[in-house]
């Protein structure tokens, strides 16, 4: 019994030591992923989970959903790496883009949302007109304004302002050309500003 227990302790210790060690060598990480090396997988998770989580939380504003989706993204990473569909070079880029798809799936599942047009009012959340006004007055937070944007508008803001992507990186991630992203981010900020209800916007 004693032997078994000390073996577990040793094990815990070595794991702990490893997980605090940063590995951000994509090449090494990708090899470890393919080999299903649990130490590498654990280290990738420890390093990149907070980023993926932050992205999803930014998009959805719900902590527990963000945790679930972020965890799921890493499981998808494992599966993709085994089926040779995984990231080739940019691990984090792959994770964020997979998270973005997962967010889109999630949004589709909970309610149908217009993907093109955006109106000034809060779309139907099942609230009466005066509730709508109350909501806007009381909880006029950025998060709620953001939630009213289209999926594309949300994504461009998340990539640029949450993940700190450059214009080119954003274009690459969204599979759009640079000019389209410039226009998109302009519309996204304008829409956000409208939702925030700033008085100085005429």
């Amino acid at each position, binding site marked *: *019994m004693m032997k*078994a*227990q000390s*073996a*577990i*302790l040793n*094990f*815990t210790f070595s*794991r*702990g030591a490893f997980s605090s060690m940063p590995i951000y060598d994509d090449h090494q990480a990708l090899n470890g992923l393919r080999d*299903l090396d*649990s130490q590498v*997988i*654990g280290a990738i*998770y*420890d390093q990149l*989970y*907070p980023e993926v*989580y*932050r992205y999803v*939380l*930014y998009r959805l504003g719900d*902590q*527990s959903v*963000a*945790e679930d989706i*972020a*965890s799921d993204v*890493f*499981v998808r990473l*494992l*599966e993709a790496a*085994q089926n040779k569909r995984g990231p080739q070079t940019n691990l984090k880029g792959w994770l964020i883009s997979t998270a973005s798809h997962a967010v889109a799936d999630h949004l589709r599942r909970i309610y149908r949302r217009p993907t093109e047009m955006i109106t000034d009012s809060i779309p139907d959340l099942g609230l009466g007109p005066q509730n709508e006004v109350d909501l806007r007055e009381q909880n006029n937070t*950025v*998060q709620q*304004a*953001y939630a009213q944007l289209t999926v594309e508008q949300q994504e461009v*803001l998340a990539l*640029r*302002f*949450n993940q*700190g992507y450059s*214009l080119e990186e954003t274009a690459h991630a969204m599979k759009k050309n640079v*000019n389209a992203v*410039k*226009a998109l*981010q*302009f519309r996204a*900020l*304008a829409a*956000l*500003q409208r939702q*925030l209800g*700033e008085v*100085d*916007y*005429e």
Partner: protein
Amino acid sequence: MNNDIYDVLEACLQSIERGANIDSLVARYPQFADELRPLLKAALSARAMPLPSPSASGMRRGRSQLLQKAAEMREAKSAPRARRSVIPLFQRLAISLGLTTALVFSGTGLVSASSNALPGENLYQVKRTWEDVSLFFVFDPSVRMVRQNEYEQERLHEATELLAEGRPEQISFAGVVVEQNGQFYISNLPVLLTPETKGKLENGATVMAVGRTDAQGFVVLEIVEVLPPGSIVPLGQPVKVDSGERDEFHLEGKIDSLQQSELTVDGRVVYLQNTTIEGAISVGAQVDVEGYFTSDGKFIAVKIEVEDSSDGDGDNINPSDNNNDENSNNNNSNDAILTNDNSDDANSDITGGGADDGSSNSVDEKKNDGDKADDGSGDGSLNKNDKKNNDKADDGSSDGGGSSEDGGSDSGDGGG
């Protein structure tokens, strides 16, 4: 014009990234000032959206999910391809059912195939089903309790192995909660509470726990249920009781008191640990305890047999009584230890003694039974030490008398 404002906005966003303030940027592009200012304000809001950090428990949960997935995939990869792909999932269920049926009718030979299976493995369902099936056919409640206790013990074994392998699987097990330096253990398995855990841990409580083993060697608890007082649970000796490697002693007497993990037999504390109990133990019952001493002098019962109350209940001889010099041969550090049946010396002695007794059997267990029969007439209590002493006083013609004398003189030495 439109393209211009897009470019200006992009230039401004890059400047904001580098720390420029809105006023200076607006001043740089006076022709777009009205349009630009609210956009840049919105950009600042979008940058500054408050985001709580991920919860430690959420992260841990995701991590163990991920590592479990990796372990499953590793297993699937290393398993022979044919087996998994040729046998579809629904057929596997049928096969395990068929196998179980075969086990029921063909006896225990095939059970061994599944006896080492761990949670998550193919044969594990067979193992658990077999356990259920064998319990189903036990009608005697006390035997049933003993069986259940054995199966609980098996759950602990499984958990220990999973933890040693760092393999995440869902497990359930029973035990006593012990807190040590802020870390909780249930039956010696280190456990973790998360905010999602249903139920609380209290030091000393007897609980049934459901959780997941994780790669760090902990059981992350999902549900903890406190069991009603009096429930007997394994105390977490994840090592199989192997009577072949321990010094075993007998103690016979009446139960003075009965607690969850220990009982007192004629004043001697007997600890229950993986104990097989035959019959219903209760205060006042006459029992025959088989057990061993730990290095710190505790007497741990391996088996408790409840005897008929009609048995003689004379003085009993304490198993720790020892004034036999031959015991110094034993490598045991415990002074109180009596005979080491398993040491060669002891064995040869006993064999010799057995011959004198007229018993031809040299196997320890049988030997004891033989003693029991002989001694029974003398004082109704027995002890391997009796045997030993008898052996020593080899020529002594009357075993019964010899042992009862020994018993009488020895009883004062007890309590080691």
